[in-house]
């Protein structure tokens, strides 16, 4: 008889092996120099651009608000590159091989795009802590360390959302061009990046709660302003973790559905162009 269960630890080994693929991708795309000059430079320029809009409005507070929002959203934006990295499995013809293997799909995709997490955290770290002071962004040593930890959380929690989006796009490839852009735009608008949540009607504020970014960004602003009490901060962090766990669950579910629905409909191609 053939055993149908894989040995213990297989899931973890798959995530790890898949993450090696992620690092290889990063190494093939950037050298440390091109990452710093090209990628980091581009993101920082974008953050500064937003802050300058704030300064045109003639308010240092606005400028600071926009600067922090743009810096933190950069982490989220980079993390959303999980969508394009994941869809590559279709173009490279590896999706049918993954489906036909005895493992499940979600551990593969969980590890596949992790390169964007440290990359996203690093760009925002440089923007917030190295260049931020020029735009009035100030952290104490302890709030700075705490904010760095929250940036890591921004990446990890948004990754769950990105994975769910990737699973959807892998299933409906016609969404691929605008799914990420739409998400990005929505986050920019309603998650407290460019305008405070209170600017929006209550139902939209409610919708913003499903994005982990809303909660994590809120905490970073509190840390920077030195105004947050620990209960508010912990509640927000808890909400970020909970919503992101929800997204990770949705992602795993959609990825497994991708395989079953694909088998039924015939949408898992051996060779796709």
């Amino acid at each position, binding site marked *: *008889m*053939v*055993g*149908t269960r*894989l*040995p213990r*630890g*297989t899931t973890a*080994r*798959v995530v*790890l*092996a*898949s993450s*090696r*693929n992620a690092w*290889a*991708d990063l*190494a*093939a795309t950037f050298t440390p120099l091109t990452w710093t000059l090209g990628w980091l430079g581009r993101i920082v320029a974008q953050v500064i651009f937003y802050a300058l809009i704030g300064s045109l409005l003639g308010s240092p507070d606005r400028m600071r608000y926009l600067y922090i929002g743009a810096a933190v959203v950069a982490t989220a934006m980079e993390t959303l590159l999980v969508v394009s990295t994941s869809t590559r499995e279709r173009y*490279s*013809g*590896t999706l*049918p*091989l*993954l*489906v*036909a*293997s*005895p*493992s499940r799909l979600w551990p*593969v995709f969980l590890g596949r795009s992790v390169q964007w997490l440290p990359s996203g955290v690093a760009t925002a770290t440089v923007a917030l802590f190295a260049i931020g002071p020029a735009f009035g962004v100030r952290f104490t040593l302890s709030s700075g360390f705490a904010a760095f930890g929250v940036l890591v959380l921004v990446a990890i929690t948004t990754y769950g959302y990105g994975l769910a989006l990737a699973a959807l796009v892998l299933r409906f490839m016609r969404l691929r061009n605008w799914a990420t852009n739409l998400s990005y735009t929505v986050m920019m608008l309603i998650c407290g990046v460019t305008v405070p949540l209170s600017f929006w009607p209550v139902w939209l504020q409610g919708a913003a709660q499903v994005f982990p970014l809303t909660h994590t960004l809120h905490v970073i602003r509190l840390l920077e302003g030195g105004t947050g009490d620990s209960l508010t901060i912990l509640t927000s962090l808890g909400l970020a973790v909970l919503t992101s766990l929800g997204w990770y669950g949705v992602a795993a579910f959609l990825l497994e559905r991708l395989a079953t629905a*694909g*088998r*039924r409909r*015939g949408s*898992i191609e*051996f*060779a*796709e162009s």
Partner: protein
Amino acid sequence: MQYGRAVGSAVAVVGLRREFGGRRGQPVVTALKDVNLQIPEGEIHGLLGPNGAGKTTLCKILSTVLLPTRGSVEICGYDVESETAAVRRLIGIVFGGERGLYTRLTARGNLEFWASLYGLSGTQSQRRVGQLLERLGLDQRADTRVETFSRGMKQRLHLARGLIGDPRVLILDEPTTGMDPVAAQEFRTLVTSLQTEGRTILVTTHDMAEAEAICDRVTLIDHGSVLATERPSTLGRWITRYARVRASGLLPAQVAPVTAALSGLDGVATVHEVAEGTLLVDTAADGAAPAVMRLLLDLGITDVATTRPDLAEVYLRVIGNRGMRVDR
């Protein structure tokens, strides 16, 4: 090592049908209709058919990435639909072309990744990957990125990947497409060597010569139906039976009488003037081609050659003789 249930067939396909489309007014395409196929353990079985015949569709169903619309498919006694997990541990898939590899990883990196998906732990994985790299002649380049590999090396890596889970049944979908003849020949030698390990191999191809070279039996498939399952030697006989004779350099005045004389011979199917002074004679019986050649020589036409019929042509005749309708 004996996996699977005590059954004779490594692959058992009964009454298999697969349709596509049919949603929102799309037309229904029937890629496979009522396919039956039994492949005993240890056989190299060829699946031969023209474009769109349904070869890839059958491979996909056997490899659990596509469900049947109707019918049953078993691998070593396990049903692809209800016992998918067991089937996935028994099969390996290899398809031709550039796809299916992570080009930014090394050969070793690729194999280690797939080893993890097949449940191999660190040391097992290292051992197996090392063995496969050596066996497929990739050990010298094991630690270079796959994007620098030649077509033949990529295909050998593909095969190594297909073998990582130690499959009992290996499914190869046009594995030699795009390879140069030498690399393709090497690849075929590798495939035949796998048989000695008791693996069952299903290989699809357009190429009759490839099928003849490596297969124990060959199934001809067209328009989603199995036409015949035969030994390659039988195919070889068909090829001679349906040989074509080409006669060139006829004078304009010779064309009509020579055509008439040839048409009168037993076993001559058609005679066409394909270019000025050139006749193409299709035969459809054993021994007809030599008779055609003799007659041509007797008539003083010496520019004569026989050619292999193309595959589609043979299908057409075989199917024609069996009274089946073919749309071409």
